């Protein structure tokens, strides 16, 4: 078993390269001038600038929260850049062919070949490097059915009425410390709009890449699914290896109108830092969806990266008969810390929520599940089932489970179950007796432990998640 831990500690991050793309940045620091600069760069309308400035003023009155079970040196919010972008070589790319070859090469290296994606896989991709969207594929095909899939900046320019209507409607600019910061300085992100009754003809996906140093990344994603529509969306994330920590404070808002379905999947593989805990991304993210009547919002996340993860993808079950789901695998190794879980707020009648959380800790990592299931007085017939299981690999890691269940309606049925144990010696011995190496056996058992969550991922990504898990535990043994 000690071999397992040693090799876990030696795990290598495969996406740690840095691309030599010319970058333009705002000066370090956070103030109204920087916010004005970002807004001006993006040629934003006055209302959005005001919205940002109001968020900034509020942010400056807030203290960084301390309740989460993570530890890091204080973050100096004045000592980073709030805007960085690959320097445009002339006007923006009109097609894939015009994308800077260095950027294309970057995404190729990440296995996100933009050209291939366009030709073969039938998945529309919005690729975002540092603070800006570099290209969105398949726009024309999507436009035929009325689906809008573009960068946030473009949405502000082309569809201001939609953005204005929904921006901040689920995660307001005063929601929390990091959401306020994001509202002030958000740079880019993806925008999806699915018109009423439309089933989005392909998976939508955004690939986030941090490249520049000493730069925070603050994207904002907004997905609006009108009545009776249906969309599946996936995001992936990587970053170069750097010795300093980088802040990533994103906001995702989902609006699922009556009878709409949004499936949101995340494969998060930001740079986790090295074996001694140096460097890595601070991933402080606010994700929330609001579900109308009979609407369904399903979050699936596979979290293997980041030095620190802090996020609680949540669903406000506002409409009657709405459904919220959260399926999560969080793997932490070395010195990684994760404090993640979900909030399910039951407001409408006969609302149903499911939480399945699988946490794996190895090395010196600390993994925390934190969740809230709240049934309000109005939520007659609400149902929740929560299952959180934690697996420990090695004696120096920790696994913590902090659920909150608050029920104000007697017709609700809420069940919470959890377990924590080390990886089973019996299972390992059984598999090894059949000839599997300790590493293969560990990986197989861990994958089996996570199966329920992987089954929720879209097919193409389930394979990727499997591979990523293996990579995370690589050298785990042997």
């Amino acid at each position: 078993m000690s071999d397992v831990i040693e090799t876990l500690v030696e795990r290598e991050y495969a996406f740690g390269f840095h691309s030599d793309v010319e970058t333009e940045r705002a000066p370090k620091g956070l103030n109204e001038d920087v916010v004005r600069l970002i807004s001006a760069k993006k040629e934003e309308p006055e209302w959005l600038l005001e919205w940002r400035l109001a968020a900034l003023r509020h942010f400056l009155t807030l203290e960084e929260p301390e309740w989460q079970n993570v530890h890091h040196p204080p973050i100096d919010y004045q000592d980073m850049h709030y805007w960085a972008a690959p320097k445009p070589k002339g006007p923006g790319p009109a097609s894939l062919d015009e994308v800077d070859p260095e950027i294309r090469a970057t995404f190729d290296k990440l296995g996100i070949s933009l050209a291939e994606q366009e030709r073969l896989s039938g998945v529309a991709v919005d690729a975002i490097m540092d603070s800006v969207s570099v290209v969105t594929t398949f726009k024309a095909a999507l436009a035929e059915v009325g689906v809008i899939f573009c960068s946030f900046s473009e949405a502000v320019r082309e569809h201001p009425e939609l953005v204005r209507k929904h921006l901040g409607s689920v995660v307001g600019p005063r929601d929390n410390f990091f959401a306020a910061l994001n509202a002030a300085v958000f740079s880019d992100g993806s925008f999806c709009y699915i018109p009423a009754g439309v089933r989005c003809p392909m998976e939508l996906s955004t690939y986030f890449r941090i490249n520049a140093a000493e730069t925070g990344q603050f994207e904002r994603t907004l997905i609006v699914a009108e009545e009776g529509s249906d969309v599946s969306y996936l995001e992936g994330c990587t970053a170069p290896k750097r010795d300093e920590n980088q802040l990533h404070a994103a906001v995702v808002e989902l609006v699922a109108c009556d009878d709409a379905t949004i499936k949101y999947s995340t494969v998060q593989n930001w740079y986790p830092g090295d074996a001694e805990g140096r460097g890595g991304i601070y991933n402080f993210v606010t994700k929330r969806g609001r579900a109308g009547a009979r609407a369904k919002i399903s979050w699936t996340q596979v979290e293997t990266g980041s030095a620190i993860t802090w996020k609680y993808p949540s669903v406000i079950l506002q409409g009657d008969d709405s459904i919220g789901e959260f399926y999560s695998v969080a793997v932490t190794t070395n010195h990684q810390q994760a404090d993640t879980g979900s909030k399910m707020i039951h407001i409408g009648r006969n609302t149903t929520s499911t939480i399945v959380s699988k946490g794996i800790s190895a090395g010196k990592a600390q993994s925390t599940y934190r969740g809230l299931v709240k049934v309000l007085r109005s939520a007659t017939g609400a149902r929740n089932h929560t299952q959180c299981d934690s697996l420990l690999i090695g004696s120096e890691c920790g696994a913590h489970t902090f659920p909150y269940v608050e029920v104000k309606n007697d017709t609700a049925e809420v069940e919470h179950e959890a377990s924590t144990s080390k990886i089973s010696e019996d299972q390992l011995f059984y598999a090894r007796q059949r000839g599997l190496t300790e590493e293969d056996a560990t990986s197989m058992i861990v994958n089996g432990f996570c199966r329920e969550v992987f089954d929720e991922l879209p097919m193409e990504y389930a394979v990727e998640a499997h591979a990523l898990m293996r990579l995370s535990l690589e050298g785990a043994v042997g």
Partner: protein
Amino acid sequence: MRASAKLLERHLPPGRRAAEADGVVEWLDAHGMPDNHDEAWRYTPVEAIVAALESAAPAPSTKPAIDRALVDELAGDHGGPRLVLVDGVLVPELSDGLDAIEVTWERSFAAGAGPAHEPADGFDALSRLAGAGTSVLRLSADFSPLGPPVQVVHVGLSGAAVHPRLVVHVAPGSAHHLIETYASLDTGSTVNATTELVVGRDATLTHHRVQVEAPSTVHVGRTHVDQAAGSTVRTSSILLGAAIARAAVHVRFAGPGSSLVVDGLYLPKGEQRHDTVVTVDHAASHCTSAQRFRGVIDDVARGSFSGHVIVRQGTVGTDADQSNRNLLLAPTAQADTRPWLEIFADDVRCTHGATVGRLDDEALLYLRSRGIPLAEARSMLVAAFAAEVVEAMGPVSLRERVATAVAAQVGEARS
């Protein structure tokens, strides 16, 4: 002025500050009273408790006017020696069998105390400073483990703020049963109670803490258990009375190979608030703990449970279970449950389960279809729900008292 300073000014006996403080005043100055931002107090109406203390009079020094019959009526008698404290002061004339056990009444909180630990919170600190005294009970090895339980009865009489402290030492290798009962007249007492149980090596202790105070009482209590190696403890907390009642249980495994069952019931109705907070600290290896709590909540009452298992780094062979189930009997009743696991070692097997729901309609229908009236059917199902905790209680006189309270929880029939 901070709430804690105001409380000290009001409740500290003259001359106590200098003589007895021992750093507690400073501790209280630094930490103050808890509020709802403190995780452990999230579901407690802590401001109302502080307000009750702020307005309550200090305990009177006059001799209490109470007779044995009233004590029996309020608290019952389960046989065995019985210590009776009225308004936080031991009254030997009302007590029985004191010669059979070793008990002393100490003015200082530190006297007879178990392993020193920081105050659990501002209320604990306040009780160390403002308490009239501490009852120190030494349960020895030669006391028959098969005899009737030792009883400690607290009666709130005058409507004052009282801070009773009880320290119990259970001798190594001995086996004892202790029943603590908190009762009061409906005079608006505020009870800030501390119990410390110091359980020796290989000792066995069964402890029932029964809170049956009158509806105008505010009760904030804590039980601190320190278990030496090889010991076996069962501690139960039953919350039945008071307007606001909070029972905190903190158990620390100080040595390996011990086992623990912490169980209990809370039955708030009307506008009652019952809050149970349990922490089990697996600071030693090869210990087993099980938490089992049931809440039955009616009317506009609110019942809360917070369970917390901590497994320390470097320990092995830990087995910890937590179970909390809640039954809502009325549409306006509220339940909160927070079963926490905090684990820093890998050789563990920990589970927890929590549920909130109401009586099973199918089961009710089934019973009624067999001719059982609705009220009786509800009563049977509630009794069955609480049975796991109630059935484990002894002696019979105590079990019946609690079972009666459970039956009384089911008011008139609702469909």
